[in-house]
């Protein structure tokens, strides 16, 4: 048994990273919006899905025009980020801002609204894709340039070119976001609004504008994650966002919600856990509990960690002032 585990381990860890980076990028969208508005933006999973759909459509239509696979992917990433980011802004404008304006104090109201928006976007995409291509499942077009693969360590790890791209792009995005938040004026304004919205407005910051940009950035990251998700897992549908969505949110909580490095770490940890237990559970339990329990294990570990570290892995204990 141990031997079986060890043989696969490098491969499992590598695949876990890919999933983890995708979760990390989605988790950032949740964590940023939560940081600023204390709102669990349930619709973020659909923003991710819309990014994926945009990527698929770019591949579908532009593949004949753009001969180079890498260039095509770059275009898809940019378009996916733009479409998802704009959708996120729209959602904020049309659903959350009116609630904020009315000064609703009940936290449940925006939450339920978010769930409603989520339904709406799923069915909207389903409708559009249904009418446009009569397709429910959208398949990412296969591009020869991106299909390469090689092995490392004498065949211990099988690596696709695509996976390398996913890792490179996500590391770049995460680094860029960290720079943006910590080193730029916009980043400082985002942090200020997150900490104290009304005082921020006394600094001359337009909170609505900053909130919009936060949604844009979070949405764009989600969109990129969507494109990469479609690239690596090849098939998507209008409901594909739900599970990665709640897992990414779980990752954000795991890392400490509102905390940007925490979301990244949480995503990576969750990706590893899911892949690890997905692969090894049947081996570890002699087939009694299979791959289907991987999410159960992931959630139980989440609860376990939160019990002992309620603020999440990197979150700061926000002690209520008494």
């Amino acid at each position, binding site marked *: 048994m141990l031997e079986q585990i060890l043989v696969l381990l490098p491969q499992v860890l590598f695949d876990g990273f890919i999933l983890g980076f995708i979760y990390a990028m989605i988790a950032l969208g949740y964590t940023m919006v939560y940081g600023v508005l204390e709102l669990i933006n349930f619709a973020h999973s659909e923003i991710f899905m819309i990014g994926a759909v945009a990527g698929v459509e770019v591949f579908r239509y532009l593949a004949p025009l753009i001969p180079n696979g890498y260039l095509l992917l770059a275009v898809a990433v940019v378009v996916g980020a733009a479409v998802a980011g704009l959708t996120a802004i729209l959602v904020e404008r049309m659903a959350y801002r009116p609630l904020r304006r009315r000064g609703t104090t009940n936290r449940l109201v925006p939450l339920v609204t978010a769930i409603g928006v989520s339904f709406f976007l799923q069915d909207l995409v389903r409708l559009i894709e249904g009418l446009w291509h009569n397709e429910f499942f959208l398949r990412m077009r296969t591009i020869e340039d991106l299909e390469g693969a090689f092995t490392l360590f004498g065949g211990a790890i099988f690596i696709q070119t695509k996976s390398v791209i996913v890792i490179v792009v996500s590391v770049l995005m995460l680094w860029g976001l960290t720079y943006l938040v910590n080193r730029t004026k916009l980043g400082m304004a985002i942090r200020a609004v997150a900490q104290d919205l009304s005082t921020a407005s006394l600094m001359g910051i337009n909170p609505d504008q900053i909130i919009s940009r936060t949604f844009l950035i979070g949405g764009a990251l989600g969109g990129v994650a969507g494109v990469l998700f479609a690239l690596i897992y090849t098939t998507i549908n209008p409901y594909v966002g739900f599970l990665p969505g709640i897992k990414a949110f779980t990752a954000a909580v795991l890392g400490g919600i509102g905390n940007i490095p925490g979301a990244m770490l949480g995503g990576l940890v969750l990706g590893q856990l899911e892949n690890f237990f997905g692969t090894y559970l049947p081996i570890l339990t002699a087939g009694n509990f299979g791959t289907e329990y991987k999410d159960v294990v992931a959630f139980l570990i989440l609860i376990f960690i939160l019990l002992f570290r*309620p603020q999440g892995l990197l979150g700061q204990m926000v002690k209520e002032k008494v």
Partner: protein
Amino acid sequence: MSLLSLALSLVFLVLSFLAPNTLAAFLGLGALGAAAFARLEPRVRTLNLTLLTLAFTLFLRNSGNTLGLIGLVGILVALTTLPRIPRWIRVVLGLAILLLSVPIAGFANTFIFELGIQIGIYAAMALGLNVVVGMAGLLDLGYAAFFAVGAYTWAIFGSPQAGKFLQGNFPLPGEYMYLFMFIAVVTTAITGLLIGLPALRLRGDYLAIVTLGLGEVVRILANNLDHPINITNGPQGITPVGRPPIDWFRSLMGTLGVRLDETTDYQLFFYLLVLVMIGLVVLANVNLANSRFGRAWVAIREDEIAAQAMGIPLLPTKLIAFMTGAAFSGVMGVIYAAQRTFVSPSPSPSWPPSPSWPW
């Protein structure tokens, strides 16, 4: 304004005899809208609502068009929310809709019973959720999981399923459903305890995600516990689930002059049962709200630290709210399983999770 609104209602009343079709239903809904939102004198509004109740009832009896049910539900909502309607009118009209109009419509189209039962189950669950979310302010997104636990509790023992892992004579006779409504209260409350004990220590938003996750865990368990021991029968679901014998109900209805056939007897029975349950849940809600528990819940929702300083222990008090909500949900699950005679986990992990999303 008043005259126009009344005229609309009267036209609809006439149409409900002459042409009870979808078009007429929309006219009726329009008339209801006018009666609810137009500036009307209270007396005219009351008269109007009464007229519309009659009209929608006749419409349903003549057509069985389910749009009419929306009208009736709309009137119920109007009765409970609009100001300055005499109390006795609210009560009489409300009871008339629930006890006369819907059954009359149900005999024209039993699907209306089906819808009524559905709406009723959701309403009872929502009222149960009121304790958890409304009073105690706990964002419980795994509420549906308790419904599933309740449904499975009866489904397993009210069908041959239990025989697959237990010695004994299964299925249990249908009368046991009543007993299992109590057992489900206990099992779901215990499930609530198990889930709540870790989850309720966490901050509000974390609670949301943990309960959502745990709801998903319950679904995964239901879907997978067909091996190593077959408890839930996995994705196949469990069917047929037993129902209580209702000969007494048939003869009771017979003496009231209501003739039941095989498409309507259980439907009417479950419809009335669900109404009774709603009544009980409302009563429990009111009682709790006016007790030290209800006040403690609201206090916790408003300010945990101040509540503690008043001697309210956080975790036990939250747990009681959580378990109360869970128990309401669980009982409705038992009724659901018996009424449907079938339970299964949702076919795929899509949003919303089955069997019913808490909203």
